């Protein structure tokens, strides 16, 4: 084996491992050749804003899917949290920005703790399959959002409320900065902490994890609480972006989040993936949707695209496994 050969081998390996990066670059080239607007800084920042809510939810979903589960309740939890946050903050006219942000965070944590806690408890202690448990809470959370608002939207929010969703720090939108920080924190937790390792271990082989002394139930409970809190916070951010509390908000967002994670990992089987992979998935979805927007394709087609992406990701993942 000579040097050149090993270099080619290495390159092949790199291409195989980092398929998504190449797909992403390819997509950017195609879209920018069709629509030159794509590469303008303002549009690129738009892409980041567009994926920001999904990024928050998908971060939680990454934990869940790595642990070998699924969380369908994220969209509804986001909607419920958006309602709770707007309903409580609406009467506080003249509230300062820091206080408002603090309130949004605290309320998100409360809503996320409750909903994620219910999911985690049902899944880890009562051994309800995650698909079924979160399907139930998905309806419960959405139902509460409707009941509380009587299916009306909440308007007339104080000025400070829109800071997260609409303001900028320097040239970067606040929401984008928040997403970057959350992704970074999540990456550190997953890649560097003992808890993160346990999440992978459980998703990889629960029996082995148990025999190595890992408290499976606690880890799972925490995973669903993380997903709940991040979805709730995403809901608050979404409400801030729209400056409204809508019970119909974040409908179908679970699909987008699952798509991002599944695309990143190339499957759903647990024990694999990570925040880096999820970011790649998020960016691909964001770029495709942005491209479709620029080419003036109807948003209904974007739903179809999303479904096709999940299907494609799983098929490619299957091929890779058989290799």
């Amino acid at each position, binding site marked *: 084996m000579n040097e050149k050969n090993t270099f080619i081998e290495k390159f092949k390996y790199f291409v195989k491992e980092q398929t998504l990066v190449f797909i992403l670059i390819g997509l950017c080239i195609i879209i920018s050749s069709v629509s030159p607007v794509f590469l303008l800084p303002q549009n690129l920042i738009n892409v980041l804003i567009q994926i920001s809510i999904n990024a928050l939810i998908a971060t939680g979903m990454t934990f869940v899917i790595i642990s070998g589960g699924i969380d369908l309740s994220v969209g509804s939890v986001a909607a419920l949290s958006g309602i709770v946050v707007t309903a409580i903050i609406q009467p506080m006219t003249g509230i300062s920005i820091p206080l408002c942000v603090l309130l949004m965070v605290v309320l998100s944590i409360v809503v996320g703790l409750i909903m994620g806690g219910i999911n985690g408890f049902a899944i880890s202690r009562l051994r309800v399959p995650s698909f079924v448990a979160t399907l139930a809470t998905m309806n419960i959370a959405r139902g509460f959002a409707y009941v509380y608002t009587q299916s009306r939207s909440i308007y007339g929010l104080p000025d400070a409320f829109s800071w997260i969703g609409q303001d900028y720090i320097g040239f970067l939108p606040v929401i984008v900065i928040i997403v970057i920080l959350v992704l970074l924190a999540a990456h550190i937790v997953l890649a560097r902490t003992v808890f993160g390792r346990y999440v992978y271990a459980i998703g*990889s082989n629960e029996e082995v994890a148990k*025999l190595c*002394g890992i408290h499976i139930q606690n880890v799972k409970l925490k995973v669903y609480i993380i997903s709940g809190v991040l979805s709730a916070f995403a809901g608050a951010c979404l409400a801030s972006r729209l400056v409204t509390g809508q019970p119909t908000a974040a409908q179908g967002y679970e699909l987008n989040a699952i798509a991002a994670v599944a695309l990143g990992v190339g499957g759903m089987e647990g024990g694999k993936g990570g925040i880096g992979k999820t970011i790649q998935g998020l960016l691909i979805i964001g770029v495709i949707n942005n491209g479709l927007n620029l080419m003036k394709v109807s948003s209904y087609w974007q739903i179809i695209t999303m479904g096709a992406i999940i299907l494609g990701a799983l098929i490619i993942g299957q091929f890779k496994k058989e290799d």
Partner: protein
Amino acid sequence: MDKKPIIELKNIRKSFPGVQALAGVSLPFYPGEIHALIGENGAGKSTLIKVMGGVYQKEGGQIYINGKECEIEDVTHAQNIGISVIHQELSLIPDLTVMENLCLGIEPRIGRSAFIDKNAMRNTARKIMKPLGLTINPDDFIKDLKTADRQMVEIARAVSRNAALVIMDEPTSSLSSREVTTLFKIIRKLKANNVGVIYVSHILSEVLSLSDKITVMRDGYIIRTLDADEADEKILVKSMVGREIKDYFNKEEQEIGDVILEVSDLTRKPYFFDVSFDLREGEILGISGLVGAGRTEIIRAIFGSDKLEKGKIRLRSEEVEIHSSRRAIELGFGFVPEDRKIEGLMLESPVKQNISLPSLKPTAKSGFVDRKWETEICKEYIQKLKIATPSRNTISKTLSGGNQQKIVVAKWFAANSKIMLLDEPTRGIDVNAKSEMYSLMNEYTKNGGSIVMVSSELPELLGMADRIVVIRQGKVSGILDREDATEEKIMTLASTLKKEEK
């Protein structure tokens, strides 16, 4: 015998990595004959059955069905040519009724419609069961039947599909003695109907009273085939054991210290009852017994992964409660499970992450994995245990069985376990890896560790263990010292000479 054999095996060979499971087996089976297969665990009986039943493909030799050479392709093919295997785990669908199970796949229809003719089905079911003398209600659900009755239904189904040869793998292991009598009646009816029966069992008295011929297997060879009336238990036990112990154990005599672990009256129904033994520092305690005797369950319970109903565990003469594996690990136990692919390894994860998993928490620095420690410990044990891996980041499933097993052992070494519970530590690994595993065990005990080793391989137990606890049907039937232990003694203690009422 002037009859033609239904199936004749000629020089059948089959191997698994590191094991020659069948080393050229030739055997004819005749219609109307009950032919028992006996031998210790790993003798090759199950493999032989699976080759005939189409589960495994033979690697050499020929199979003749009614005088014609035949390749058995898969399970369906085996059934089509008249071979029915009744496994220990039954293959009936519990949520369907008896008749639905009997007619599965051949449901009678009303005319040519898609609707099932329930009455015709009931009649068919009765017609199938009557010649066997079964009086089970065809409308009963399988899940409501007793184990014995389920087995009868299973046999009835096998026979109804024109089975010319019915193979039964330990059919009485879950039956009471009265049920066994019924089963024997049915087997004799099969014989009267000119069906061939292959009967695999560990229970020698059953074999002697039921069968016409008895074949003894050992190490993938047929040792002898004899007529049942010229055999007795002594002859059978003697043929089953008695191979030479190979010299690769290198057992080093250790200084045996004080009692470190003492268990008394451990009970978990229906797996084991009143099990008591002790383990000394630097000792290797072997646990022998037949498959299903409760050996694995006992050490799983000690490790806290199964709950105990009763019993005490003392560690260095202090009583401890082990209610979870986590607690067991804290107390210094390590556990190498029987099936490393299911319970021992995260196959899709790197070597490194497997080795460090149990000790992540104690070594962590405020919740963060100590990566420097992790790298060092992996380097150390990959080198010490001679794990042949391209790097510590290699995905575990790409390594050989022996190296995978070493990873499982390495993780407990890394966790500083003082008492190692090993369940079939050398299963499915080749001779070299076995030998290395034995030297690791020697090394471990030399450094003050103690080992409880469950094994189905008698030479391994005789070669490595300082004492051997023999388990029979969930109870300790004897504890043998190294000097006294022989294969004959172990087999006599392990085999059930008389079936006890449960």
